[in-house]
């Protein structure tokens, strides 16, 4: 009997070491609805946008489920997927967007695996002993048995300053009969000029990603940390939107649409240029 009491006491004592503090233990704090309302993951943004989960997010809907991509549920979700506190997207524009996304005959959905969305990552690197901001553009691509995020482009101010192709009278050139002299005047391009890019073809664009990787391999560029992540979406016909993470009090938090633009012909390329060129 003593032994049983001793064992029981030992169990009770060890239980008291952490009084009900694990996940789903008695006495845990209750969410007042803010975390439930928050779009907690980009994955949840996709599911809510497409109405592929229950209102509280606890049940994933699959094809065949009665509420899978339900129009009314989608409409409810769409209304909470916008940043309503700091962004200047008008209610009219939101309504037009919702109308097209929820169109009875041809509703539009987001697709995680398809092209038309990518990530913009603001990171800090150490470049030759100095902290520098770097913007990386990542996209999802099929690879092996699944998918992977890959670096598609990079934007780095010190590189942009290096390449500055002169124009007009300032631009050096190799005259059209240079070939007759065996291009001896290349000396002007490579030795006498500090803008050798002046001697490149019209369509020449510096490949910053290659230089970026080269500098990293050389050891002059070292990763430090990530500052911010956002996403750009072009998957909905004739629309562009930006997805940002909002960490603030209240119910309008998490991954939300912060910028919405109706695209006219040619606008997509202009926006892409704006995003990649970093203004």
């Amino acid at each position, binding site marked *: 009997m003593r032994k049983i009491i001793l064992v029981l006491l030992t169990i009770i004592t060890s239980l008291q070491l952490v009084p009900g503090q694990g996940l789903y233990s008695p006495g845990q704090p209750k969410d007042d609805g803010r975390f439930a309302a928050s779009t907690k993951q980009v994955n949840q943004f996709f599911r809510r946008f497409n109405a592929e989960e229950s209102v509280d997010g606890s049940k994933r809907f699959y094809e065949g489920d009665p509420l899978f991509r339900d129009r009314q549920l989608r409409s409810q979700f769409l209304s909470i997927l916008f940043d309503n506190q700091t962004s200047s997207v008008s209610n009219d524009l939101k309504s037009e967007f919702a109308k097209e996304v929820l169109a009875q005959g041809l509703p539009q959905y987001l697709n995680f695996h398809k092209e038309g969305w990518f990530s913009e990552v603001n990171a800090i690197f150490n470049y030759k002993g100095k902290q520098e901001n770097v913007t990386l553009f990542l996209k999802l691509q099929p690879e092996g*048995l699944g998918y992977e995020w890959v670096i598609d482009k990079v934007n780095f101010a010190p590189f942009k300053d290096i390449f500055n192709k002169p124009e007009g009278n300032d631009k050096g050139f190799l005259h059209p009969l240079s070939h007759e002299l065996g291009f001896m005047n290349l000396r002007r391009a490579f030795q006498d000029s500090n803008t050798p890019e002046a001697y490149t073809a019209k369509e020449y664009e510096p490949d910053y990603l290659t230089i970026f990787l080269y500098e990293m391999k050389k050891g002059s560029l070292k990763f430090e940390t990530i500052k911010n992540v956002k996403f750009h979406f072009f998957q909905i016909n004739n629309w562009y939107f930006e997805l940002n993470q909002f960490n603030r009090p209240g119910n309008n938090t998490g991954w939300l649409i912060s910028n919405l633009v109706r695209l006219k012909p040619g606008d997509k390329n202009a926006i892409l240029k704006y995003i990649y060129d970093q203004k």
Partner: protein
Amino acid sequence: MTKYIPLFLIVFLATATLSIAQSDNISPARKQAIDSLALEKVKDLSKYISIIGSKETQFSEANRVMDRAEELFAPDAEMGVSSINRTEIAYYKVRRYFERLMALNYDRVNISWYDIHYISDLERQPDGRYVGVVTVYQRFEGTSLESGLNYKDTTKKDITIYVEKKQTQIAGRTIEFWDVMLGDIRVTETAA
């Protein structure tokens, strides 16, 4: 008849490829079972974190629990921590993160977990393993008796889970099962 043989072969091969591809797919029912397994691991981690952080836990016991907690993780897993005032991520190896938690300079520490979680879809990686993210929220309260200061915060923890089909031999028979390991964790202080 012979002219149909290539057609049969094509149909047969196409069906065979499909069934191979589908054999590793995760059905909704299987996903639910994996979610439960993942949540069990996250529950274990949450319990271990509470024990390690508690000032009532003996040093030797905390070390033992840290060993247990480390076993939940895939090798090289890291914690990436940011706060409201500092959005840059600070990186810690899992063990280092636990050690810092244990060494926090408070007389009383209470770590508890909100009654909410979110589990992402499972996505397949190039190596065939599946990856998902479980989100949970933690409340931290630290009290310093001498200064009377009371520090509180709520952090969102986005926990990577790796899901892999494994095999084991039981009584000469090969049994397949799905195993879950924890990976990198992103810790964000919430403004809530």
